[in-house]
C-alpha cells in the first residue's frame, strides 16, 4: 500500500517551471530515491510532499492526508531533514534533541537516539564543534526524534568524506529496518544504487524512469558483456545460436560475448555441456550512471 502518492505534480516559480509533471508512489517500508542533477526539481518535489510548498497543479497524498490541509497532523508523522539546514553554533547535541523531542506527542528517547546515532560522546558538544558527519547525524536524529512513519532526507551525504558517507548509509538502512519509510533525495549514483529499493530519475521537472536500480539499468542499458579465456578452442557457433547472445568477438585469447537477459547462465551452461572451462570469467554490466546518461543524455557530475 503506498504511503505517498504524487500524481501530475506541477510547480513553477514565476516564469521558471521547476516541476513539469511528476508522478510516483512510495510503498511502506521502502527506501525510495529521488535522483537527478542539480536543478532537476528534486527538492521542489519533496518540499511539496513535506507540505513546505503549495503545488500549482496535481495531487499529493501522504499517509492518506493532504500535506497542506492536514499539515498539523502530518508534521507529527513525517520527519524532514532539509538541505543546508544548520543549528545555532552554541547549541549542544543533547539540547537540540531534547528541544525537538518536546514538539512531538510521542517522541523517541533523545538519549537513546543519541547513542544509536553514535553521538554519545558528543552529547554536550556545541554544534559548531561537530564534524561534518556528526552534524549530518544530528540532523538525521532531529528528523527521527518524533518517531515519524516517513523520513524525508534531502542530500544527506553532500559534503561528507567517503567514510562518513558509508557510515551514514548504514545508518539509513538501520532506520529503515525500524519500519520507517524513507524518501531520499540525492545526486550521487553510488548512493542511489547502494541504498534505494526503487528510484525516480528526475530531469528538467519530469520523471524519466521509475524502477529498482537494477531494473532501471537492465531496462535502459540491457547489454551485458562476458569475457573469458576458453580452456579448449571454442566454436563461436555454439554461442551465436543462443537467443540471449547478440554478438561474439575475440580479443587475443579472450572471447567477448555480448547479450541480454540471463546470457551468463546460457553461456556457462553451453560451456559446461562441452566441457570447456571458462578461465578469468568476467561479467560487465552497465551501471546506474550509464543508465542515467542513456536517459538524460548527460552524466551526473558530483
Amino acid at each position, binding site marked *: 500500500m503506498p504511503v505517498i502518492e504524487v500524481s501530475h505534480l506541477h510547480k513553477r516559480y514565476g516564469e521558471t517551471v521547476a516541476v513539469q509533471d511528476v508522478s510516483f508512489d512510495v510503498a511502506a517500508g521502502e527506501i525510495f530515491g529521488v535522483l537527478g542533477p542539480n536543478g532537476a526539481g528534486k527538492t521542489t518535489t519533496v518540499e511539496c510532499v513535506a507540505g513546505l510548498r503549495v503545488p500549482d497543479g496535481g495531487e499529493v497524498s501522504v499517509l492518506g492526508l493532504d500535506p497542506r490541509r492536514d499539515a498539523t497532523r502530518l508534521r507529527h508523522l513525517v520527519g524532514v531533514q*532539509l538541505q543546508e539546514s544548520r*543549528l545555532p553554533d552554541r547549541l549542544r547535541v543533547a539540547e537540540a534533541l531534547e*528541544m525537538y523531542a518536546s514538539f512531538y*506527542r510521542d517522541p523517541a528517547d533523545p538519549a537513546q537516539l543519541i547513542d544509536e546515532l553514535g553521538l554519545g560522546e558528543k552529547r554536550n558538544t556545541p554544534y559548531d564543534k561537530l564534524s561534518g558527519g556528526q552534524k549530518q547525524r544530528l540532523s538525521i536524529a532531529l528528523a527521527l526524534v518524533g518517531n515519524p512513519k516517513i523520513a524525508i532526507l534531502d542530500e544527506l551525504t553532500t559534503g561528507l568524506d567517503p567514510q562518513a558517507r558509508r557510515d551514514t548509509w548504514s545508518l539509513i538502512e538501520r532506520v529503515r529496518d525500524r519500519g520507517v519509510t524513507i524518501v531520499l533525495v540525492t545526486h550521487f549514483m553510488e548512493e542511489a544504487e547502494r541504498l534505494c529499493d526503487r528510484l525516480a530519475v528526475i530531469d528538467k521537472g519530469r520523471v524519466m524512469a521509475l524502477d529498482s536500480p537494477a531494473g532501471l539499468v537492465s531496462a535502459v542499458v540491457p547489454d551485458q558483456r562476458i569475457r573469458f579465456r576458453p580452456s579448449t578452442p571454442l566454436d563461436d557457433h555454439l554461442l551465436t545460436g543462443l537467443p540471449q547472445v547478440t554478438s561474439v568477438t575475440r580479443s587475443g585469447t579472450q572471447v567477448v560475448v555480448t547479450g541480454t537477459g540471463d546470457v551468463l547462465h546460457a553461456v556457462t551452461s553451453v560451456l559446461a555441456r562441452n566441457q570447456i572451462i571458462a578461465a578469468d570469467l568476467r561479467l560487465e554490466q552497465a551501471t546506474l550512471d550509464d543508465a542515467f546518461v542513456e536517459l538524460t543524455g548527460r552524466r551526473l557530475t558530483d
Partner: protein
Amino acid sequence: MHAFSQILKTEARLYLRDTSTMVLTIALPTLILVVLGLIPTLRQPTADLGGQSFITYFTPSLLVVTLAMVGVNVLPTVLATYRERGILRRLATTPASPLALLLAQLVLALIGILISAVLLAMVARLAFGVPLPQHPLGFAAALVLGTAALLALGLLVAAAAPTARSAQALTVPVFMVVMFFGGVYLPRFLLPDFIAEIGAYAPPGVQALLDAWTGTAPHPLHLVIMAVVAVAAGALATKLFRWQ
C-alpha cells in the same frame, strides 16, 4: 505550550552563553554610567541643566543604549541568522511553529531590557544619588512603548534583510540614528533644538523617558507616536517577514 517553554529555555541558554552580547545589552549602559560617574564635575548640579547634575540628566539616554542594542541590533541579527541557517524553515517542518521561536526571542529581549533598566536605575541611585524614576507609571508607559517601537523596527529590519550579513549592514545606520536622536553620542542639550525635538518623537522617545524620570508626566503625543511606530512597523514586518 510545552514546546514553547522548551524553545524559550533553549534560547535563554544560548543568550547566556553569548557573553559579549549579554554584556553589551545588559551591562553596557551601567558601565558607561559608572565611568562618567567617576568624573566629579559630572556629579555636580549645573545651572545649565536646570540644577540637575549631568549624570542625572544623562541616565535616561543611557537606557536608550540597551533599547537600541536589543531592539535594532541583536534581535534582527539573530532572526536573520536563524532564517539564513534554515532554522526557521526546519521548525516549520515540525509541529512547533517558527512563530514560537520569534516569540521566545521577543520575550528574551523584554527580559534583557527590564534587567538592564533596573540595574541602571539601581546603580544610578545607590552610587550617584540619581533619583529613581519619579513618575513610575509614566516611566513604565514610556519604557514599554519605546521598547515596543524599537522591537517592531528590529523585526522590520529582520523582515526586510535577505541575509544575515545584510541584516547586520542595515542595523548599523538604524542603530546609529536611534543612538544619535536618543542623545547618547552627544548629550541632548548640546544638540540643536530641532534635532532634540526630533529625538522626542524618534523611537524609543527619550524625552518621554526623561520627563517621567524627573517626575513630569510624559507628553501623551510622545507616547502615541511610539505606539503608532510599534503598530505600523510591526504590521509591515508581519507582511514582509519570510521564514526562509
